[in-house]
């Protein structure tokens, strides 16, 4: 059996497969279909200081091999999360990453501080990249602001801080590097791409809001490249997230430079998708004679001169 344990900065995981924020509820929703405890980590849906009602429906619409969503960060808020969601998340027995979102630097500081005191939280993931609320991309689309909010959060908590970057920028590297300077433990690459779907007859968006965030297989090649770019140009470990539906997809991310991966939208079509990716990963590595999954991380080779890469 191939060794699957990985380290993401200070965070040690039993395996590289994590559940992505906003696609796994707070774990209990998936429990009827699979054992969330088998995963390397569970990332809960974004938590804000105060409860949020989110956007009006329709909130999702399918596009070719993709999904546009405009949930708008509906969540029960920090206090109810601590009371109602965290105990069950902890009980699964694997790493718990709490994804947090705020409107001001102080919000992230308060959230990071409180969660650092809570028992059973292994890391924070800062959502600087939600395209579905006004100003949701504020911190994630100005490297100076990214650095400021990450530094303030790192100072406010004992927990490792993972920064979830947006792909909706011309060049992602300044954001990864700003996170590194500010003391982040890793970057998650990436959140969703802003997109649209509309019905020309009614001249209406298919979502209640004009735009949404695109996820699923449609974005995989784009995010794979972002992960590779971050691995090349920044010293932080990278968590790859975008369009992973199979073990092959996940292994491609590792070769591109991800130390771990998150499975998101695939869970909607198959609630056991994370577990299936994990099982397939072990099998494929065994078949390929790879002893340790870490051998793959960042192992992309240059194409030999004068030959097609295939």
């Amino acid at each position: 059996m191939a060794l699957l344990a990985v380290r993401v900065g200070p965070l040690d995981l039993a395996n590289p497969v994590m559940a992505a924020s906003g696609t796994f509820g707070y774990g209990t929703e998936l429990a009827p279909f699979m054992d969330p405890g088998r995963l390397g980590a569970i990332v809960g849906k974004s938590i804000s200081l105060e409860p949020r009602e989110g956007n009006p429906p329709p909130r999702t619409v399918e596009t070719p091999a993709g999904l546009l969503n405009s949930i708008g960060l509906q969540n029960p808020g920090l206090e109810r999360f601590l009371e109602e969601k965290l105990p069950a998340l902890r009980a699964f027995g694997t790493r718990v990453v709490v994804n947090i979102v705020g409107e001001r630097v102080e919000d992230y500081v308060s959230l990071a501080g409180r969660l650092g005191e809570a028992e059973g939280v292994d890391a924070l993931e800062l959502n600087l990249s939600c395209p579905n609320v006004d100003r949701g991309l504020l911190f994630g689309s100005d490297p100076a602001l990214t650095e400021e909010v990450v530094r303030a959060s790192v100072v406010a908590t004992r927990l490792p801080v993972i920064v979830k970057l947006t792909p909706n920028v011309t060049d992602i590297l300044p954001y990864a590097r700003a996170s590194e300077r500010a003391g982040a433990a890793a970057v998650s690459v990436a959140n969703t791409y802003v997109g649209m779907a509309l019905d020309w007859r009614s001249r209406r968006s298919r979502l209640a809001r004009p735009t949404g965030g695109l996820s699923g297989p449609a974005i995989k090649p784009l995010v794979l490249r972002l992960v590779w770019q971050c691995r090349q140009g920044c010293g932080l470990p990278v968590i790859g997230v975008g369009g992973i539906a199979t073990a092959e997809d996940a292994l491609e991310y590792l070769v591109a430079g991800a130390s771990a991966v998150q499975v998101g939208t695939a869970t909607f079509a198959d609630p056991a998708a994370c577990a299936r990716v994990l099982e397939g990963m072990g099998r494929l590595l065994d078949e390929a004679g790879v002893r340790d999954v870490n051998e793959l991380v960042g192992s992309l080779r240059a194409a030999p001169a004068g030959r097609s890469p295939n």
Partner: protein
Amino acid sequence: MTLVGAPGVPPADLPGRVLALDPLGSEAFRLRLHVPGLGGEPAPGVFFQVLCREEEARDPLVRRPFSVADARAVRDGVEVDLIFAVVGRGTAWLASRRTGDTVRLLGPLGRPFAPGPGGLRRVVVAGGLGVAPFPLLVRTLRGRQASPDPVTVLLGARTARRVLCAREFEAAGARVRVATDDGTAGTRGQVTALLEEELDPGLGPAEVHACGPEPMLRRVVDLCAEAGVACQVSLERVMACGFGACYGCVVRARPASGGPPRHDRSCLGGPVYDAARLAGVEW
């Protein structure tokens, strides 16, 4: 606590085998599936998330929700019927299945209709394909006691050939009334006009179950609220997962425990809602 599935039937991701795909009216189909491994007959009003593609394909990406139209426990599993029309890529794929093909089903999911205690006139209101959950509900209502409550099914459709399951409801012992937009069957006009007649207090206490297009359901909710008649409606919001993970399919409803309206995931809290939670709310 997460509440998924019909009481007593744990939800699961199961392969169903196509027994038949029968045309229903001019536009719709009735898909009959044999689902080995399903733990029992789902309750009326619950749904399955149906994978409308080959498993290895990545498009159409997410599953499509369909109400359980009918279900029969058989020796090695359950036979499940779905009623649908082709409106897009997923339903087109479903309509191209042949006997013996496999279709993956996730469920049963959601909360079922919860008819009140016996002794009421049961009025079922179905608009178009909203008829889907009612064969099982009507059979359940009629089969409940030795002397079952009277059931009236009000069917609304655009035209006669789109009036679905009328004979089936009659065979189950229900009285059926029809309204069509063009008057080619039953009365001309909206099915909610028939409901107004049925809500006449002189006819005795009633309970209403409804499913159909949202404008119709809004009218049903309002009429029942005015008449003070208990009512449950089954809502069809666009869903991605169907089991509470995506927060996509929300409905603004008053919490069952009271208080101001909140976005409620209709795959967990619904699809069937007590109309009292929706009355007066912009849901």
